[in-house]
């Protein structure tokens, strides 16, 4: 049985539909990310789970109990916000103890628990500092500790890393995952950063305009996008117009050439498809007749270990990006003509 169940949750603001019958199930101990572009309704959904917003219809069920009508204070949910949310008048430790104090735990138990969670987030030695004496990353750690202190039924994180700089963001992201695994707390994590979502989640929920675009494990979201929105939103992808040429042989006509794509097997000839190539599956080689497509290198972007080369396919303005080891890319000059190849299993086809 699922631990948290969102059952056809819908929400409107005025005439604007923000959530359309969203249903998600979380298993106990699972780390699920809500991923989607700005304005797609992630925060709204999280706030409905937390009880700060009421759905127009649908239910929020926690451990078999409908909590839709329950006040936020009664839901036992730990929440970390995007904005810094520590109480400025309290030290880190007092912040962490706040939820316990509200629950009238005795002072010794409060202090013990506060020390535990502050240690968990690596801030034990900063317990007596006020929020303004802590860095942004440290403040978010304290906020996490504060949310964990009450042993929440559910941990809700709304883009807790977005105000932090890149390095701290990666550190804290990994730490959130470690802490989640150590504590086993079921977690719903909102982000618009796909790398964040893919790297730390058990499952990712991709949202688009208030509907679920796809729900699945990170590898499946990346490798088997269910629709063109997910393909475009998660990871880089080259998108070429194609028509299935031969359903039994696995051939697709792309830009006037017949190319191999094993996923075309079983599709009716004549079906229009998006022909999708991830940069890391594209191989560039010397121009020869055996190449699947040909093109001209028009741009180069250096990422350190990897370099991506942008290739304009001959006979059109469509481009394909190839990611390769920087050493190999150095041998290919901008303006040179190349063949574009791939393993027939690599291209993904989505019916257009």
């Amino acid at each position, binding site marked *: 049985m699922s631990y948290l169940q969102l059952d056809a949750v819908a929400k409107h603001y005025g005439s604007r539909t923000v959530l359309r019958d969203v249903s998600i199930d979380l298993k106990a101990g699972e780390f699920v990310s809500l991923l989607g572009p700005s304005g797609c309704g992630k925060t709204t959904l999280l706030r409905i789970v*937390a009880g*700060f917003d009421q759905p127009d219809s649908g239910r929020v069920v926690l451990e078999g109990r409908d909590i839709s009508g329950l*006040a*936020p*204070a*009664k*839901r*036992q*949910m*730990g*929440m970390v*916000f995007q*904005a*810094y*949310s*520590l*109480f*400025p*008048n*309290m030290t880190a430790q007092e912040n962490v103890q*706040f*939820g316990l104090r*509200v*629950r009238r735990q005795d002072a010794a138990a409060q202090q013990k628990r506060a020390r535990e969670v502050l240690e968990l987030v690596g801030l034990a030695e900063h317990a007596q500092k*006020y*929020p*303004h004496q802590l*860095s*942004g990353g440290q*403040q978010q750690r304290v*906020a996490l500790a*504060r*949310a964990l202190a*009450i042993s929440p039924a559910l941990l*809700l994180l709304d883009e807790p890393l977005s*105000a932090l700089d890149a390095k701290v963001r990666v550190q804290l992201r990994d730490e959130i995952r470690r802490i989640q695994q150590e504590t086993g707390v079921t977690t719903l994590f909102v982000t618009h950063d796909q790398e964040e979502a893919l790297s730390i989640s058990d499952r990712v929920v991709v949202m688009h305009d208030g509907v679920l675009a796809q729900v699945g494990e990170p590898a499946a979201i990346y490798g088997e996008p269910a629709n063109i929105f997910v393909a475009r939103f998660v990871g880089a992808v080259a998108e070429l117009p194609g028509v299935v040429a031969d359903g039994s042989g696995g051939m697709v006509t792309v830009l006037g050439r017949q190319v191999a794509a094993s996923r075309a097997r079983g599709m009716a000839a004549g079906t229009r498809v998006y022909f999708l190539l991830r940069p890391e599956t594209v191989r560039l080689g010397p121009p020869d007749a055996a190449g699947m497509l040909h093109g001209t290198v028009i741009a180069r972007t250096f990422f350190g270990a990897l370099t991506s080369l942008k290739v304009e396919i001959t006979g059109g303005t469509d481009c394909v990006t190839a990611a390769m080891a920087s050493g190999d890319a150095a041998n290919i000059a901008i303006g040179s003509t190349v063949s574009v190849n791939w393993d027939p299993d690599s291209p993904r086809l989505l019916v257009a």
Partner: protein
Amino acid sequence: MSRPTHNLIPGLGLGVIGLYFVIPLVATGAFSLWEGGDKYGLAAYAALIHQPKLWQSLGLSVRLAIQTILVGLVVLVPAVFWLNLRVQRLRPLFDFLSVLPFVVPPIALVAGMTTLYTGPDWFVGTANYLVVPYVILALPYTYRALDVGMRALDLKTLTEASQSLGAGWMTLILRVVVPNLTTALIGAALLTIAIVMGEFTFANILLFNTFAVYIDYVGQTSATQAAALTLLSFLITWLAMLGVLFTGRGGRGQVQIGGAR
């Protein structure tokens, strides 16, 4: 690097303003020490201190000031909190209401009050009754101070954070909102004290012997004592300020607005 011209002009301005305040005070002080002819001394002060009525009126005004502060805050803290958290669109209405005391002359308020308010004798029959108009008089200042203080806080996030931790509204306001408003509360309290200590119209018409009424009465009987009393009232206001500031500092919340870096 010295910039004499840059420093001179503001300095001069401050000096002139300072003189504008100090000269009357010094003159009042000198006059309060005058004992007729060319004799100077503390006779006026000595005479004042032995007036039990002075202490009664002073006590009354201080008590009224404290009551006014408490009533004003109990009413306004939740109201301004709610305004900032939930009903921002009512801000024009709040702004309008808060300046009404400037628009309606006290004399009209007093006339309205005497006809409108009836009630139990312990309230209407005693000086406690003055708290009602005083809260209204202090309203613009208290409202402004609280509003500025609350706007500087991220109320929505603080509210939601404390609710998700299980806190109710009372806990939220008393433990989270108020402690982060110390500066605003001190400001509101100071202004209220200043208003109540100096308020004359209501007390005089409703026949209560407050500090301001007593100053007026003394002024009619002894000019030097009135001057001494005026200085005394300055001193009280200043002491009040220092006292309130000091307690504000003494509290532990070294509040820095904005919190984050």
